């Protein structure tokens, strides 16, 4: 007899929660971090799903139906292009302005803040975002009143509509397919907010040499905003498990001594603040964190999922496996270009080395964006193998 959606939901949620809590569930949980990859898989372009929510959710639903995973990673990775268009967004070069409707968002490293503006940012970061950052990132918001106010309102309407549709889709997937939604909220690491979105990565790396105290003070000023970003973005039906997604992409450019001074204190502060509020965190640590892995042991035990990309996951398991749940890290290069046998061999070794003792969720090493990030037949082979081989023997 087939299980009901409710039974499947409870079974999958328990599996995820136990792994998250550093225990051994019935088997190794797994998810596919499927982003714009879902468009190609479902016969759409990225432009299609960025502008048409029906197509966006149809594409995700096809992936839910075809791949038996323990949760949906998120459908919020495809940002609503209508919002960017309303405010004249320039930071992410959307497909509307690029060469092809198949092109994912591109992220040019641009500085929207002068070095002399640190004191202003530190004094009132929220006002600084509204008055300085937004008009520099969004061309319509730089226009004189009332055009800028109308643009902000148009963007807000589009944003609200998008959130309504997203919430409804999540509810449907829980009720119809019994799949929990992994990501419950969002808050980039404070240093990443500064480097990626305000000052620019290149300029920030120079600033940590020339004005280190201001960089530290800026991260500390941004921290309360990041905490509030997490709580105000938090939604979803499974509060108490679904963690706040904290993408961390600039740490890999830092020397360990700089990581310790500039990046880590406010990232740790963010995770600790969320844990105090009863919220779990999901650190997506891009690149290679081998030099910083030991710092993760300082985080609240059983409250954090750490998704590793190029970091040595076996070493991480030894170093911090009793503190954080690890996720990863079947390479997209293998999923996209390897054979089914090669994928299974990699997954077998991963399960053998990292799954014992629990606290492990199997996934790809990167977010799936382009068609070459994974062959569907490789993902099918992987999900089937994990269900069979990933069973914990009691």
């Amino acid at each position, binding site marked *: 007899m087939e299980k009901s959606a409710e039974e499947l939901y409870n079974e999958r949620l328990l599996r995820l929660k136990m792994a998250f809590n550093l225990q051994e569930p019935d088997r190794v949980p797994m998810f596919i971090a499927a982003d714009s990859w879902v468009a190609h898989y479902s016969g759409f372009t990225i432009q299609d799903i960025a502008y048409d929510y029906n197509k966006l959710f149809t594409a995700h639903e096809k992936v839910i139906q075809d791949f038996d995973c323990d949760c949906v990673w998120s459908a919020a990775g495809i940002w609503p292009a209508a919002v960017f268009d309303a405010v004249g967004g320039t930071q*992410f070069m959307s497909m509307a302005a690029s060469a092809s409707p198949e092109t994912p968002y591109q992220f040019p490293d641009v500085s929207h803040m002068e070095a002399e503006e640190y004191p202003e940012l530190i004094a*009132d970061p929220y006002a600084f975002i509204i008055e300085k*950052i937004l008009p520099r*990132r969004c061309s319509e918001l730089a226009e004189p009143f009332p055009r800028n106010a109308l643009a902000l309102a148009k*963007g807000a309407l589009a*944003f609200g509509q998008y959130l309504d549709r997203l919430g409804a889709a999540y509810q449907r997937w829980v009720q119809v397919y019994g799949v929990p939604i992994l990501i419950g909220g969002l808050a980039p690491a404070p240093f990443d*907010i500064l480097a990626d979105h305000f000052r620019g990565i290149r300029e920030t790396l120079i600033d940590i040499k020339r004005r280190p105290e201001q960089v530290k003070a800026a991260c500390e000023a941004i921290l309360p905003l990041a905490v509030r*970003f997490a709580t*105000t*973005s938090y939604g979803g039906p499974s509060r108490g498990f679904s963690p706040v997604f904290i993408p961390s992409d600039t740490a890999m450019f830092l020397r360990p001594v700089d990581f310790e001074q500039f990046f880590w204190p406010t990232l740790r502060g963010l995770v600790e603040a969320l844990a105090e509020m009863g919220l779990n965190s999901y650190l997506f640590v891009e690149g290679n964190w081998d030099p910083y892995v030991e710092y993760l042991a300082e985080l609240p035990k059983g409250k954090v999922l750490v998704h590793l990309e190029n970091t040595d996951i076996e070493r991480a398991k030894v170093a911090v496996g009793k503190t954080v749940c690890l996720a990863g890290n079947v390479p997209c290069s293998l999923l996209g270009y390897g054979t089914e046998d090669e994928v299974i061999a990699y997954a077998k070794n991963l399960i053998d080395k990292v799954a014992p003792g629990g606290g492990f969720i199997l996934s790809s090493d990167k977010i799936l964006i382009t068609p070459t990030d994974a062959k569907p037949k490789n993902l099918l082979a992987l999900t089937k193998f994990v269900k069979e081989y990933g069973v914990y023997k009691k």
Partner: protein
Amino acid sequence: MTEKKLYIPWAEKKKGLGHIVGEEKIAKAWDRNENLFFYYIMWLGTF
């Protein structure tokens, strides 16, 4: 920190309004909207 009044929680907004009927509902709706707007601004600022 010298914050400008760009975020106005209900506790701030209600000052000087006198007696308010059904304040609990109004406060909840007001703060929900403030939170949603904050999310929107942060989303625009970081996406």
